[in-house]
């Protein structure tokens, strides 16, 4: 772990990709990761204090351990306060790390090797070209070869059809939308999700194999646990859902050049003033989350990939130069959620079965894209998440809302009591749709340092997100499309959640390319300091899931970093 060429901070959506790409070119890399490492034999019990240290060998990856830890129980995994997949230290007897939001909502991020991709749905669409071309500092065409490389490496494949996708396609077709076949989406239509999930095992429908056997073989088993953390596969590097802890991290370790240190929270970027390069990153100070001890590590370059909240927080807590855009311009796809209730007979006629089976198949396996507005995704969650996300989360409270004007009849807001129980009693006949809105960059939204509150890692991030006029308009249009699709598919009743704007799931653009970093991902004001997470996006990509673009950019940034500082 001594004297690496490059330190990477964070091993999530972006960090793991940079580490693998740099390691592959022969650079020595140390990754500092704030959270635990599941599925690594160095930490057989990651929630209890063990030997300190790091791991750099693919032999340490242990699928049997991983299966024991990724239990697929939504409380044990997803609980934001005590779950394994939460934003907090490995020790779950300690509270999660606090975030200060100025509006109602919460930040859904996950600490640990793999970062938030541990719970992500693996939806991996490319940006809408029109949101990038002539807007970003780099062109959409420039991105394509990097998209292709990531799509091949993860890999990305179109989702298989299960009951809920079939019902979604049926509704989309009846509502008159065309099927889109290209990855470069320029006009509206529906399509299977491009997902970073291995294709189903070829023997899945063969009863000669038990499902338990299949879950230990290569390929998705349609178990529906993407969001709960997927443990299915023959080895860590062949787990079906391609979170970075099972895709890029194993590849990084296989280079023999990458060391990952979990339970290490970076608290300061160290800099020096060099005659030639000006202010220059020379290392990182970090705190061991078990011992509380602070350590320092030096390197020739540093890559921040701590995510959209912690990357700007780290910049600000390090006292790096003033830049009016650090932390600013955050977008979040002003998300919403609608759920339809179906009748058994109607389902029978469309699906040949009486249930939508929301817990079967990819958590999200189909989508409808609308460049200029955003996208909508069919989604099926386990029942605790369904209850709380569909009926318990609403900025409308118990009230109905002005949105209802001009939209066919539907309920809105929190649902409680007998009506809630009725929805849940019919859980297996519901279909939910998530809404991702093309929202606008507004410098008032984003991350600042709390002037008062500190935790053990320094001043707390204070977060504001209030959607602008364009986001509100686009969301309203997408809600109409989603509700219409549900009714066309045969829904008897529809419920709109009206999620709070500050429900932060697709956080992007807090360290934007062109203002904080240059087009190669290097900070304008600090040489040898790079950023490779969602924060460098110039905007919200038109309202599509952000991670594939982060991974394409991280691939490109690694290449540019090597060219500039490690070329011969």
């Amino acid at each position, binding site marked *: 772990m001594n004297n690496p060429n490059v330190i990477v901070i964070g091993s999530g959506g972006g960090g793991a990709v940079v580490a693998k790409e740099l390691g592959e070119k022969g650079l020595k890399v140390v990754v500092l990761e704030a959270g635990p490492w599941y599925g690594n034999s160095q930490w057989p019990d990651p*929630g209890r204090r063990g030997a300190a240290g790091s791991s750099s060998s693919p032999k340490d990856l242990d699928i049997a351990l991983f299966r024991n830890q990724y239990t697929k129980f939504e409380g044990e995994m997803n609980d934001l306060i005590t779950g394994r997949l939460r934003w907090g230290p490995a020790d779950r007897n300690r509270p999660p790390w606090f975030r200060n939001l100025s509006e109602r909502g919460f930040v859904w991020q996950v600490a640990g090797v793999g970062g938030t991709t541990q719970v992500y749905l693996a939806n991996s669409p490319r940006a809408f070209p029109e949101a990038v071309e002539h807007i970003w500092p780099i062109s959409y065409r420039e991105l394509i070869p990097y998209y292709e490389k990531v799509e091949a490496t993860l890999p990305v494949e*179109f989702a298989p059809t299960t009951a809920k996708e079939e019902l979604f396609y049926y509704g989309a077709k009846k509502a008159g939308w065309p099927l889109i076949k290209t990855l*470069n989406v320029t006009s509206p239509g529906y399509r299977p999700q491009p997902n970073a999930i291995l294709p189903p095992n070829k023997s899945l429908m063969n009863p000669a194999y038990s499902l338990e056997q299949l879950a230990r073989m290569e390929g998705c088993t349609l178990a529906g646990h993407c969001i709960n953390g997927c443990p299915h596969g023959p080895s860590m590097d062949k787990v079906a859902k391609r979170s970075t802890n099972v895709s890029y991290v194993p590849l990084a370790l296989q280079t023999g050049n990458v060391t990952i240190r979990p339970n290490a929270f970076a608290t300061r970027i160290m800099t020096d003033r060099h005659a030639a390069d000006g202010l220059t990153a020379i290392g990182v100070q970090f705190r061991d989350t078990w011992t509380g001890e602070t350590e320092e590590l030096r390197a020739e370059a540093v890559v921040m990939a701590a995510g959209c909240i912690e990357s700007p927080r780290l910049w600000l807590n390090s006292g790096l130069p003033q830049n009016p855009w650090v932390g600013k311009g955050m977008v979040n796809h002003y998300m919403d959620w609608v759920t339809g209730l179906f009748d058994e007979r109607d389902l029978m006629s469309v699906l040949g079965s009486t249930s939508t089976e929301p817990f079967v198949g990819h958590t999200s396996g189909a989508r409808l894209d609308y460049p200029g507005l955003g996208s909508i995704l069919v989604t099926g969650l386990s029942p605790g*998440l369904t*209850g709380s996300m569909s009926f318990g*989360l609403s900025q409308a409270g118990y009230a109905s809302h002005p949105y209802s004007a001009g939209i066919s009849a539907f309920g809105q807001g929190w649902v409680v009591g007998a009506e809630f*129980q009725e929805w849940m009693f019919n*859980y297996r006949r519901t279909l939910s749709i998530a809404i991702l809105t093309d929202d606008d960059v507004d410098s008032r939204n984003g991350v600042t340092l709390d002037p008062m509150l500190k935790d053990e890692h320094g001043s707390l991030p204070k977060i504001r997100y209030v959607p602008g006029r364009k986001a509100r308009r686009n969301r309203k249009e997408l809600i109409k499309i989603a509700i219409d699709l549900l009714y066309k598919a045969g829904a008897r009743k529809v419920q709109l959640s009206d999620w709070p704007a500050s429900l932060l799931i697709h956080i992007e653009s807090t360290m934007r390319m062109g203002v904080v970093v240059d087009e190669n991902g290097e900070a304008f004001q600090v040489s040898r300091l790079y950023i490779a997470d969602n924060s460098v996006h110039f905007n919200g990509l038109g309202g599509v899931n952000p991670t594939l673009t982060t991974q394409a950019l991280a691939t490109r940034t690694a290449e540019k970093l090597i060219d500039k500082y490690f070329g011969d």
Partner: protein
Amino acid sequence: MRSISVKRTASGYVQATFQAAVDAVIPPVFQGSGGSIQIVGAAQLGVHKYVIRQLDHSQFIPVGMPVEPLMSLSMSTAVMLDAGAEELVHIGAMTDPVSRMLYPEGGTFSALSRINRLKAIALINQLAIPIHALPFPYQNNPGLIQTMMESLHQLTMFGYYSEWFGYGRTRCLPPEEQRVECFPPGWRMSGYPGPSFGYRGLRGFLLKYPHQKGADGYE
């Protein structure tokens, strides 16, 4: 309000208040097509214990701030629920009489009928209560007040429908020591079969992924 002879303890007060809250969100009745039937409600399952534990576990104690005497988050939340209830009484919007019968250790909130408890929550959610008079951390903190009204619903529903009740005897142990011991009623009610190894649910593929087709379709 008539005086009561029950001795109120801090923890009894918090328990009663949260019992009343989760009971309003998931009461023991269910409106099926054949009329209303009895089911097990959130309070019967003890979901209030889950909500209290999670709130207190999530409590943030700032570095360098005097922590003593710090009120637990469940306590300050209970006080806030009472503030909502008192405001409801104050503005004369109560539709049923109060009663201390169900939750003798509780305050005003738990003496309200279910529908009035929801109204009290709605008032708090609309910030239509004197927020300057709330305890830390809610005092003049509208974002957090509203987030907590979301959390009351979300935690109740998540506690009820996730595996929490199934932890059985390990329900109140630290997270690393909890084990699922039985099938939780929420799964039976929703028809969720529990975690699975997989489903033979494949219905085919709509499209094949066009790997390495470059800018295909984008001119």
